[in-house]
């Protein structure tokens, strides 16, 4: 990847982060009914546990998802 492409990607990411941060609106506790829904959890659900495990064994990448990062098993 060329340096210019890398810089463009980083600039795009920074712009997205700033845009998201700028669009934040305060949410009161009584307005969090949708956010508190069990399927809105920011993270893997327990039913995905074994799926994440086999992906750690069968793929070279791991981590970045709150799950296994390496070690603890005879996996990659």
């Amino acid at each position, binding site marked *: 990847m060329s340096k210019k492409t890398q810089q463009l990607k980083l600039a795009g990411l920074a712009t997205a982060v700033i845009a*998201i*941060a700028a*669009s*934040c*609106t*305060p*949410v009161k*506790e009584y*307005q*969090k009914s*949708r*956010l508190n*829904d*069990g*399927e*809105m*959890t*920011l*993270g893997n*659900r*327990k*039913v*995905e*546990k*074994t*799926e994440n*495990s*086999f*992906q750690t*064994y*069968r*793929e*070279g*990448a*791991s*981590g*970045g*998802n*709150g799950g296994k*990062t*390496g*070690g*603890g*098993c*005879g996996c*990659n």
Partner: protein
Amino acid sequence: MKKLCLTLVGLYIGYFAGFAQDKTDSSKYKNHTLSFEEANIVSSYYQQTGNNSAVTGGIGTEKLTDLSNSFDVKLYRYDNQFRKHTWGFELGIDHYTSASSDMIDLKANSSASHADTRVYPSITWTRENEKKGITIGGGASYSHEFDYQSFGLNLNFAKKTNDKSGEFTAKIQAYLDQVKLVYPIELRTGNSNSRHIDYASTPRNSFSATAGWSQIINQHLQVSAEADVIAQQGYLGLPFHRVIFNDNSTHVETLPSNRLKIPIGLRANYFLGDRIILRAYYRYYTDSWGIHANTASLEIPVKITAFVSISPFYRYYIQTAVKYFAGYQVHTAADEFYTSNYDLSSFNSNFFGAGIRLTPPKGVFGFEHLNMLELRYGHYAKNTGMQSNIISLNLKFK
């Protein structure tokens, strides 16, 4: 006169004492005794096929089945300073059969690893100060299977913003593992014909640091980012993985004794309207062995009713190969490091399926304490020909 004054003083004190009693806030009562919060059972059946087994040098069956079960329970109590202490106990038991591991000693149903059981208990503790939005915690874990043993420790910290819309998390973790050196039978020295030899062990250690941020954007959208830095050192391959050189000689997979991994994951969950949720995930991964990988997934839970939802999902994954990978009969004696493990090759994969989730208010199937049932199926396929199916069940009790 004195009696009248005393009466008036008494009434005056009683009047304000009544107000003092009214100021007591009974809603601040917190349970100081250890109480049950929830328990989960997760069971999965995994079945895999393929023709690039690392045990036989990159060719041969990858047929494998795995029955995985885990049970976890959470208990909590509040201390005198109204901080919530939570203890988690988990026990996992996986039993797998593997046609490729069966070929470690080149005879069917004879290798010690053709079937194995992995047992992995763990314990966690957190202390949450809900007023200050600060959580600290730690945990320990253990894992044992025939040829692998692991001890793990972790510490974690979290801090919410004043308005509770954002949260910073940090975690450090260490695994101190031992790999039993079960070499392919033709490469063993000493009394290789004995099936009761004492295998030597060698260490594999993994250390990781994780930082994350989650943020509520508005009533419908929340996002998070998580980055890890993982350093591994020790025996990082597997001793029963064969590599067949171009001169047809057989060798044990040899990989560097150090590896640095950096994954960065991003999530965004959006509640669209009243019934549809969009759960998006992206991860970029790079490591010192040459792998660059991208992962993207989308899950769309659709609420059929308030208590029943169907969730189709799709995940795409693509990676480049490690610098040391080559297929069957490609490596030469000039290579310092070599592997024919197709999990470390260049490939892409698709994983798709669907799940159903039941959360009726009076309990699933009328069982009051069975709070939730989730059933999920997925099909996984690599462009190298490996395919697998997995079905998982989660029961939550409250």
